[in-house]
């Protein structure tokens, strides 16, 4: 295996609605910032890969509209996934493993504000039995939260504490959308949005994007003082039908964690793509994280949740803390689909 590292990252200032800009105007400054930080020339990336969704933009092949931001003419080696950017990073990692690239630019973005996001996300469900009922993403998450509470995985009080801790932590995150929270006891006085979920249990709806630069081996060492090496990365999926799954656990995360080697060393920080408070304990259990592990010091998706980017942002946040020397080893998790259907786990390490 080739050593591959994240050598630079950049994020937008995440907001509820970027009403003035179109998608390419939203992501171009982010790509430019990550590129300039990386030291790789704008026209010199061996590979470029992006993640986005036509269902957010409401138009087919919408990712083509943002290729302007990577100077894709004359043609470059480029690919796209209709998934979170964490999977675009995975594709770029594979591309570098094949030896066809030494550097890669990975970016993803989501502008959820043009549509009605919870209803848009219902289109991810199976088209025959589940999608025709138009359950929103919040409805599906509420089913999972209810089962998790009944199974003793969490409680409404513990969930409120996750919300409070996350959004308070986000006060130090210059990109975050929500950066404060009332005390847990006060949160629990709110009405239910979809029982047992209250508004604070749900990630906000966000417009934003992220860009990450990968480099292999000595190229990474030459460009970055302290590269964040991807020591392990794996992704697994659970069944699509909700009734095929035990929603109170995340077996696919557990397998990905094992394959990525999470337990091979101490975990100092974990950034988890938990868009609902009850999902954090489910993921902690699947990843085998102890109580001593700092989870989502950036605030996580509860503080900013740009669709298609929030997973890649988890990798970027862990990488930033390795770049700065704050930690030596961390875990990033990304998810796709409803109720933690598809999960990616990466282990990042600094050296020296």
């Amino acid at each position: 295996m080739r050593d591959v590292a994240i050598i630079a990252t950049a994020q937008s200032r995440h907001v509820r609605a970027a009403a003035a800009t179109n998608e390419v105007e939203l992501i171009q400054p982010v790509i430019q910032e990550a590129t300039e930080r990386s030291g790789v020339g704008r026209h010199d990336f061996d590979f470029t890969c992006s993640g986005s969704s036509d269902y957010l933009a409401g138009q087919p092949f919408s990712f083509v509209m943002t290729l302007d931001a990577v100077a894709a003419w004359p043609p470059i080696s480029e690919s796209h996934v209709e998934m979170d950017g964490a999977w675009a990073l995975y594709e770029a990692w594979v591309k570098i493993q094949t030896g066809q690239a030494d550097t890669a630019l990975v970016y993803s973005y989501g502008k959820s504000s043009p549509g009605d996001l919870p209803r848009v996300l219902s289109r991810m469900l199976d088209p025959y039995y589940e999608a025709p009922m138009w359950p929103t993403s919040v409805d599906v998450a509420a089913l999972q939260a209810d089962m998790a509470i009944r199974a003793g995985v969490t409680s409404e009080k513990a969930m409120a504490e996750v919300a409070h801790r996350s959004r308070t932590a986000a006060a130090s995150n210059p990109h975050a959308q929500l950066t404060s929270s009332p005390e847990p006891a006060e949160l629990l006085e709110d009405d239910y949005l979809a029982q047992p979920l209250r508004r604070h249990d749900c990630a906000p709806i966000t417009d934003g994007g992220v860009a990450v630069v990968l480099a292999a081996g000595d190229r990474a060492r030459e460009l970055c003082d302290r590269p964040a090496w991807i020591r392990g990365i794996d992704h697994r999926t659970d069944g699509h039908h909700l009734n095929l799954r035990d929603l109170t656990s995340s077996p696919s995360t557990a397998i990905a964690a094992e394959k990525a080697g999470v337990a091979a060393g101490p975990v100092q920080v974990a950034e988890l793509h938990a868009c609902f408070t009850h999902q954090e304990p489910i993921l902690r259990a699947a990843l085998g994280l102890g109580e001593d592990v700092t989870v989502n010091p950036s605030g996580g998706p509860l503080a900013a949740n740009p669709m298609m980017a929030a997973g890649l942002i988890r990798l970027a946040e862990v990488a930033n803390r390795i770049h700065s020397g704050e930690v030596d080893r961390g875990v990033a998790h990304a998810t796709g689909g409803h109720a933690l259907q598809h999960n990616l786990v990466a282990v990042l390490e600094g050296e020296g």
Partner: protein
Amino acid sequence: MSEPAPIPLPEGLWSQPTPDLSALGELADAEQVRTVRTPAKIVYDYTPGIATTRFLRAIKEKRLVGERCPETGKVYIPPRGVSPVAGLPTTEQVELGHDGTLVSFCIVNLDFTGNAQEIPYVSALILVDGSDIPIYGLVREIPYDEVRVGMRMRSVWVDDDELTTSFENIKWWAPNGEPDVPLSELAEYV
């Protein structure tokens, strides 16, 4: 018909509990569902963006405004805000005229539009003077079999009191009477 043999799954991949299918037997005599109809509709608000908004506000004033690439100097219309060659924002607005050159065309003999256009009609790519990427438009005021690449064209607009923030302000393009542009000068655009 015999049951297909179960497919053996590799160890570790099938992470979920085996689904309970015992209730399916009770459905043996139920009427089969052969089709389902599941209408779906999602409404979106479209955001043109900063550069395209500048373009649309200008076109309401019967002006065509492109934006220049800071690296190559090429002018894009309608602008999307970023140069596809440089990957950098286009920040300089460039006032363009109402004339252009036909660089490609198609004689349409199929009714795509539900009688909105009488067939045959000509759809063309027009390189507006001062810009570097052609835009779509209809060609009229000339028999379709006389349309040719290199023809000089002028845009024909709706009446001034009908101008809106829409590309449809240009009804069609018509010959402007100037001599054709030699193909050699259009090599980059055809």
